[in-house]
């Protein structure tokens, strides 16, 4: 029973981490909390659903379609809403509010098209086989979710640490002005970051849709709240923090459902987050940021 819960928790945590990693990267680089990340997540799920149901796409191409659609959405959000405010030097609050607008537009448009009902992937999309791995029963679906999430996160970390553009992203995260003085096109880096991070959000969306086999137009809200909790818990802007935070939230949710009551799931897991923040106010990997001036 307990080992089974671990399998569930791992799959859930993997998706939380995947969602939060892009969310935290955007904050780290653009210094904006993009409240459209949940809507982008939902777009990814629907894009995957359409790829499967209408075009009979396989798993890899479904994932790819989700990431492209969501990545494009992120690109457009930056182009239309966040970027212009950044150029006019409205930092933080105005772009955040602009992203609420984007989220509302996306969500209501999708509701207009798809309605409020839940959609499902075809039954046999992922065969319901399961494997025994060190005593834990993992379904093929769970293995796929964990595997894809880990793979994407490793790719992102490799990109940030080893490639020319990845290093440029880290330079901009630390200091856009210094980055510009090195000849880095800072605006392009902002847009690239929004696109990649949103693509990760889209991947998390389609994996969540597969995990619970439910997709609906308002699935972006709950994950957004969890995403915010996860990145605060992990330390704003910190990639490792997003991964660790996702793990903690996923496990606390699954274990509180299994051993206490599903009614109190959110109360317990978010209560735990508060407790951790009381001990480490800037998050697990967070640096203490002093206000300047």
């Amino acid at each position, binding site marked *: 029973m307990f080992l089974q819960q671990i399998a569930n928790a791992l799959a859930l945590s993997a998706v939380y981490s995947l969602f939060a990693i892009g969310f935290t990267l955007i904050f780290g680089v653009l210094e904006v909390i993009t409240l459209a990340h949940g809507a982008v997540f939902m777009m990814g799920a629907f894009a995957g659903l359409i790829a499967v149901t209408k075009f009979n796409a396989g798993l890899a191409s479904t994932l790819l379609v989700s990431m492209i659609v969501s990545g494009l959405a992120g690109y457009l959000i930056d182009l239309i809403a966040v970027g212009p405010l950044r150029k006019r030097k409205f930092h933080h609050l105005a772009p955040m509010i602009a992203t609420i607008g984007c989220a509302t537009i996306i969500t209501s448009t999708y509701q207009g098209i798809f309605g409020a009902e839940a959609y499902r992937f075809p039954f046999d999309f992922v065969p319901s086989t399961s494997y025994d791995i060190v005593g834990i029963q993992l379904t093929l679906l769970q293995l796929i979710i964990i595997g894809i999430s880990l793979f994407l996160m490793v790719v992102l970390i490799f990109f940030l640490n080893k490639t020319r553009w990845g*290093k*440029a992203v880290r330079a901009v995260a630390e*200091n856009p002005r210094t980055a510009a*003085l090195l*000849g880095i096109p*800072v605006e392009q880096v902002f847009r690239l970051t929004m696109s990649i991070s949103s693509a990760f959000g889209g991947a998390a969306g389609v994996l969540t849709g597969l995990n619970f086999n439910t997709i609906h137009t308002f699935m972006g809200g709950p994950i957004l709240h969890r995403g915010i909790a996860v990145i605060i818990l992990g330390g704003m802007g910190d990639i490792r923090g997003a991964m660790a935070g996702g793990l903690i939230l996923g496990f606390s949710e699954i274990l509180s459902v299994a051993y206490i009551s599903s009614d109190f799931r959110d109360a317990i897991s978010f209560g735990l987050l508060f407790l951790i923040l009381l001990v480490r106010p800037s998050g697990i990997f967070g640096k203490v940021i002093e206000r300047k001036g």
Partner: protein
Amino acid sequence: MLELRDIYTNYDHIRALKGISLTVREGEIVALIGANGAGKSTTLNTISGIVKAAKGAVLYNDKNITKSSTHSIVKGGIVQVPEGRAILTTLKVIENLELGAFIRKDSHQIKNDIESVFSRFPILEKRANQLAGTLSGGEQQMLAIGRALMAKPKILLLDEPSMGLAPLVVKGIFGIIREINREGTSILIVEQNARMALQISNRGYVLETGRIVLEDSSASLLTNKKVIEAYLGG
């Protein structure tokens, strides 16, 4: 090769530059001296395109770059080492150098150039895999200069390279600046340490509250009564 024509720049609603004209010729070291707040950094930032001039023109090899973006100005060969070094503290020393070459694509030559930065500043090689934030002030200045050299600049803009450094370290840094110039890079140096700046430069400009009040060869500025009184400590 670089010319500022009657530049006016506003900075946070303050008129920081009120009609600056200056030139840097090929192979020169030009010093820009003046008190705190005279507009020295703003002048460099206007050249680099970080702040845009409200009026006037920045010409680089007779091309107007007043409205160009910072990264394209760097690509063109004007590279700034900003005040307070502004190294990337969360990146490794070697990564800072690699990013200095961001505008270049000749990866093989980049490796060689990192080696030559290391031979110019051996301490950086020792610290190559450390986070740049762990370096001392002097080492950070070396990194900042080394990183700027990675872009293969035609003109190097140096903003207060002596700031916060011990006199002996400053001497070393200035020696290296001279060396870089001898290898063919023109230099525009902004300094509060006017004596040091005038000793290594060919010509100098004196900046006072956004205006150039004096311009001469550095040798004559060093003996100019007004300059001695105001900037060389009597």
